[in-house]
């Protein structure tokens, strides 16, 4: 995640192959919007104290059920907490879940996908089978069952569950990409040179797949964010914690929408949506970058040749 921040501020910092990416990002408006949103959330997560004067957002210290006002920008909950403060402090956990789970899932995807493709033969068949099985088994029911039975609904459990269920999609993509790369010349030459397999994989092949890996990461982060929010919403997270999903859980159980406190429901959901959108926008921009055919077409006043029906 911090890698992205670095990219937008200084191209020269990256020494990886494909640094033309950063220039391309700057050109794409979608990526800019996405990155700005992400940046804002990151800042809020790191220094929440800058954005609100409340230090303990879950403490019951205010009059319950107040509407929005100068003192409480989004009003207060039915227990007497400031909604804006909860929103601000909740950013950190939601962002951490998305990024950490996304990261680990990506690492797993890359490892499995690349290994399967490069080794080929029986290891490939076995790994592909495992990947497909994980892909197909409906994960949310599994998550619900697992999260319920693990008893303590702590962060670690949620993270493990997200990683275990989120890696398979990316693994398939990595494998497909690796298969197509396997016979390219630069890899062939590395093999001829006598380089070790691990070197070839990690130092030669992977760097060319950076954009795919980033795309997989963003997809995994999005998946983790939405699934974690969903889990917390239906009550399988830790109700004592501060995160957007937990806020949604509380607002739902206190019937916020029906009892005249819609902001309590709208605000955290909107934040989840915004963060998710930022991931999606950046992802979309990466699609365009890696596939030139997708780049936005400027309308030109060129007469199109009429195709006559034969």
């Amino acid at each position, binding site marked *: 995640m911090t890698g992205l921040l670095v990219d937008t501020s200084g191209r020269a910092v990256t020494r990886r192959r494909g640094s033309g990416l950063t220039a391309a990002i700057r050109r794409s408006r*979608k990526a800019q919007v996405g990155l700005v949103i992400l940046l804002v959330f990151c800042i809020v997560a790191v220094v929440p104290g800058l954005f609100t004067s409340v230090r303990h957002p879950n403490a019951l210290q205010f009059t319950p059920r107040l509407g929005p006002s100068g003192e409480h920008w989004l009003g207060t909950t039915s227990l007497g907490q400031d909604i804006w403060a909860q929103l601000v402090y909740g950013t950190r956990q939601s962002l951490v879940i998305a990024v950490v789970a996304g990261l680990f899932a990506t690492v797993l995807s890359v490892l499995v996908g690349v290994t399967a493709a490069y080794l080929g033969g029986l290891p490939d068949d076995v790994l592909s*089978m495992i990947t497909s099985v994980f892909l197909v088994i409906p994960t949310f029911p599994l998550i619900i069952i697992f999260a319920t*039975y693990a*008893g303590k609904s702590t962060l670690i459990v949620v993270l493990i569950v997200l990683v275990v269920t989120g890696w398979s999609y990316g693994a398939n993509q990595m494998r497909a990409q690796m298969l197509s790369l396997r016979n390219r010349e630069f890899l062939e030459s590395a093999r001829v040179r006598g380089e070790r397999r691990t070197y070839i994989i990690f130092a030669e092949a992977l760097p060319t797949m950076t954009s795919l890996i980033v795309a997989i990461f963003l997809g995994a982060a999005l998946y983790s964010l939405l699934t974690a929010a969903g889990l917390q919403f239906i009550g399988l997270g830790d109700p004592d914690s501060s995160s957007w999903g937990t806020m949604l859980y509380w607002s739902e159980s206190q019937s916020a*929408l029906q009892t005249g406190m819609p902001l309590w*429901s709208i605000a955290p*959901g909107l934040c989840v949506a915004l963060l998710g959108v930022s991931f999606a926008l950046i992802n979309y921009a990466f699609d365009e970058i890696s596939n030139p055919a997708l780049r936005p077409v400027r309308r030109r006043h060129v007469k199109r040749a009429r195709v006559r029906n034969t």
Partner: protein
Amino acid sequence: MRYVVRRLGFFALTLWVALTLNFFIPRFMPGNPLDALRARTHDRLSPAALEQMLTSYGFKPHQNIFVQYLEYLRNMFTGHWGISIGATLGEPVSTIVWQALPWTLGLVGVTTVLAFLLGSLIGVVAAWRRGGRLDSVLPPVFVVTSALPYFWVGLMLILVFSVWTHGWLPSDFNYDPDLLPEFSLGFIENVLKHAVLPAATILIASIGAWILTMRNNMITTLAEDYVRMGRAKGLSNSRIMTDYAARNAMLPNLSGFAMSLGFVITGSILVEYVFNYPGLGYQLYNAVQNTDYPLMQALFMLFTVAVLVALLVCDFAIAWLDPRVRATGSR
């Protein structure tokens, strides 16, 4: 043929893995049916009575675990899914499932297929009219909608169309409780009215992904040489669009559809939860909350089978559309 065999083999293997997981997870986690039943009966019954009740409901906790496993597999396949020990203590699981199934198929199934077809169609058209107004507006809008959480879309729709309009569109249930199910116009109208918001939620939240992937695939395909060849040959636009481009662009989309069915099920569980729609997803949530082992196991198996069947159908559709697959036996 080889392709068919391979896919069926994969189907069987995955089903077996899912069933085995399904069998072992509850048994490795804390708690057991005896405790669950004890809590359910508020501690009133003696241990002997509880054991008798459990046996009446089909549990034989002291049996060898391997024997239990084989019996479990056999029961799953023959439809002997046992009796619920959750909040609906005593009701046969199959009754609960058959009651809930048509609602999930109707709501989630129909809407998902609709979203897929509609999304693909829009994607094709958007790609075709590259650079047009449609194409510059749609992608950003749908990128946004594809990242929205299912349940939040549901909540917002409830807020706007149900709370603010004082109940113009109902936000819960599949039909009004005081109506009796029958094939009358009034009843069907009521069912449809209750289905509008949940269906809209699924549509809004999922269509974006289809539109975008289809559009991207189409654009990539349109840049291919054979399409240019078609144009050079002088074929009509619509012909190129359907026979040349769409048909090929559809393939990765179809396989993507199959892969993402797991996510669709996730979404459906959340939607049914938000709208209290008594389908399979809602029953699964309740089963887990009430530690209702028999119901949980049956539902989990059903979900897995549903995804696998859909995957199989998609695979065969791809094989039908793409002769290369038939020839080589793999993609």
